[in-house]
């Protein structure tokens, strides 16, 4: 599938006027939680409540139907019982609104009767060109426009913020995961642009979002959580992803490593396939990076959002702590990244610029009494040598000699060289703050060597996807 116009999707994130169908005055209800999101000052558009029971909800004017609203409405959030949604959609059609998010459950996920209701809604939507997200989802969060249909109170489910550096968007089949990730990334301080929960995917699906996010200038990395694709939808995702990955990285967590397909197969090949191996092949072939879990996903996504992809697999580790150096290079090695020692020439230059008790190899240990100047010397020579494609920098801040100017040194060399840098900084409160500063300056920072190694691997993987044959792969095999 190639991407057509994504205009019909754009309105879900840019709507200037939103109607909440099923807005409610009863506390802790879905219909109230959603309207609360839209009366926050961050959302600058207009909001209307629709419910024949009220004249107003939380001070928002409430109308019996959409047609009673005089002004135009861009987007409807539907939070009414499933059985009355067809009627709601007739109202949406009459008001000529082109986008709706159905939060309610009780559709195809519950069985035959629900599926019939869903079909009915889809038929009305198709007839009137209404795009539909859901049903059975939490909808969308856009951190720029502040459109937020998550019916989860903010004190329980934090909302992430956009970063000035780079942002990630996530599409999730599961609403619960979308919510948990919202809460979690808010806590992590990760820059997020959009979170979308697709639910039953009765209309808008992974392909639509993939096309949209590929063009979205506020999204630098596209993340997906999926449990599976409807028949042949896996193929269309594959076809679309192939066109996107040379320009923007896509990360996927896919669960449901099921055996169904295997059981049904009668040939030798079929019995060996199982759908997971085929899924793996599809992701690999289309340049989608599959990760095992959300922790890996966000470690990788942060690096991919903030740093350029690596043009080769040669990593140099610089550290002011020997243990951290060894731990990190072990992790890098386990992930099949090359950790070549400096050439004799480079080694000479480094020795000239460093105290004799510094260990020059890979890792390079500038030892505990260092200040930023030794890092500076190493970066200068190592970058000029052209012997490395990527730098992993151990920055232990427990020592009094290393000042905060180290963050400037790292950020400046990264920017000047255009080579990817990753920082690993273990520790407590002071370190965490320093890490935040480092990231404000554009270099992703991790709490352990293992996480940093994973991030480095993601940059190499994406480099290989993006640059293909031009990627300088010095390690021959990708097998352990």
């Amino acid at each position, binding site marked *: 599938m190639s991407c057509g116009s994504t205009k019909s999707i754009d309105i879900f994130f840019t709507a200037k006027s939103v109607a909440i169908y099923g807005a409610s005055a009863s506390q802790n209800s879905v219909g109230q939680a959603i309207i609360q999101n839209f009366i926050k000052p961050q959302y600058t558009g207009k909001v209307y409540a629709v419910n024949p029971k009220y004249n107003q909800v939380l001070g928002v004017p409430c109308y019996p139907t959409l047609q009673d609203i005089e002004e135009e409405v861009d987007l409807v959030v539907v939070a009414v019982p499933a059985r009355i949604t067809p009627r709601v959609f007739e109202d949406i059609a009459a008001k000529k609104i082109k986008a709706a998010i159905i939060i309610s459950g009780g559709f195809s996920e519950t069985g035959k009767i629900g599926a019939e209701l869903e079909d009915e809604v889809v038929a009305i939507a198709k007839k009137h060109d209404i795009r539909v997200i859901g049903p059975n989802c939490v909808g969308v969060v856009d951190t720029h426009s502040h459109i937020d249909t998550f019916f989860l109170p903010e004190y329980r489910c934090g909302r992430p913020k956009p970063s000035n550096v780079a942002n990630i968007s996530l599409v999730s089949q599961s609403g619960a995961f979308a919510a948990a990730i919202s809460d979690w990334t808010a806590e992590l301080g990760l820059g997020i642009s959009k979170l979308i929960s697709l639910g039953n995917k009765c209309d808008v699906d992974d392909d639509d979002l993939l096309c949209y996010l590929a063009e979205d200038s506020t999204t630098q990395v596209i993340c997906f959580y999926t449990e599976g694709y409807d*028949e*042949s939808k896996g193929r269309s995702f*594959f076809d679309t992803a192939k066109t996107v990955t040379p320009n923007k990285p896509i990360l996927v967590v896919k669960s449901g490593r099921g055996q169904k397909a295997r059981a049904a197969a009668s*040939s*030798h*090949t079929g019995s060996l396939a199982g*759908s997971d191996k085929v899924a793996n092949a599809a992701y690999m*072939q289309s340049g989608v990076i599959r990760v095992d879990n959300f922790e890996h996903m966000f470690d990788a996504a942060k690096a991919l959002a903030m740093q350029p992809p690596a043009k080769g697999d040669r990593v140099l580790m610089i550290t002011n702590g020997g243990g951290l150096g060894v731990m990190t290079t072990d992790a890098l090695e386990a992930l099949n990244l090359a950790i070549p020692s400096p050439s004799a020439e480079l080694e000479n230059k480094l020795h000239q610029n460093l105290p004799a008790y510094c260990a020059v190899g890979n890792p390079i240990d500038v030892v505990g009494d260092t200040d930023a100047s030794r890092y500076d010397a190493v970066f200068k020579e190592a970058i000029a040598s052209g012997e490395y494609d990527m730098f992993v920098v151990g920055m232990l801040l427990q020592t009094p000699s290393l000042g905060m100017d180290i963050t400037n040194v790292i950020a400046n060399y990264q920017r000047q060289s255009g080579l990817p840098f990753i920082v690993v900084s273990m520790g407590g409160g002071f370190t965490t703050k320093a890490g935040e500063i480092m990231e404000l300056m554009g270099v992703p920072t991790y709490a352990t060597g293992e996480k940093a190694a994973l991030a480095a691997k993601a940059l190499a993987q994406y480099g290989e996807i993006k640059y293909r044959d031009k990627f300088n792969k010095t390690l021959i095999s990708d097998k352990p």
Partner: protein
Amino acid sequence: MKEAKKIFKTALEEGRTFVLEHEAKDIMKAYGIPIPPYSTATTADEAVAKAKSIGFPVVLKILSKDILHKSDAGGVKINLKTEDAVRAAFNEIMENAKKYGQEKGIDVDLSRGVFISDFADMGTEIIVGVTKDPQFGHALMAGLGGIFVEVLKDVSFRLIPFTESDAREMLKELKAYKILEGIRGEAPRDVDALVKIMLSVSKMVEENPEIIELDCNPTFVYAIGKGALVVDARILIDKPDK
């Protein structure tokens, strides 16, 4: 490809969703996939004559719309080196097929006789196959035969269609790839010939999406420059309008 479509039509008309061995080989041949010389014979005399023109040793296999698993029905005789051996094998296969039919309570159609083929020299055993995944559609699998596939499940996949570099990459993904590169002083295997087969199978499936499963098992790959042969082929097709 017209050849394939005609064969699939015949199969479905006979109520089969599998194609017979000579049909599978006809399709393979049409796509330029290397296979050992083959023919069919409906009498013992014809089998002998065909064996002589193919050259000994040969293999005989039952050809019947009622028998999918030929070995189970005693329908396969290999390494037949003489005219007498071929004659005896023909008669024995027919007897076995009849017996098989009696046991199963079916009237086995024997009108097509046997498939007769050159008994190919042993090469490095490879399995090339196709599966149709419900989510992603057709995918090609490759792996080394024997324990590598049976025990270690050392196989790799790519969605169809794929490029030549995909094909090479998927072979390199195999843990047993070193065997193809030649180990213990052996000459490297003819990987180019294998890649060509993989690409031809990909094209075949792309043009005939009704194929739902396919096994080229075994495929023998010989030393570099000596090519590769698909020795046994199975093709299963989808019922239309299912």
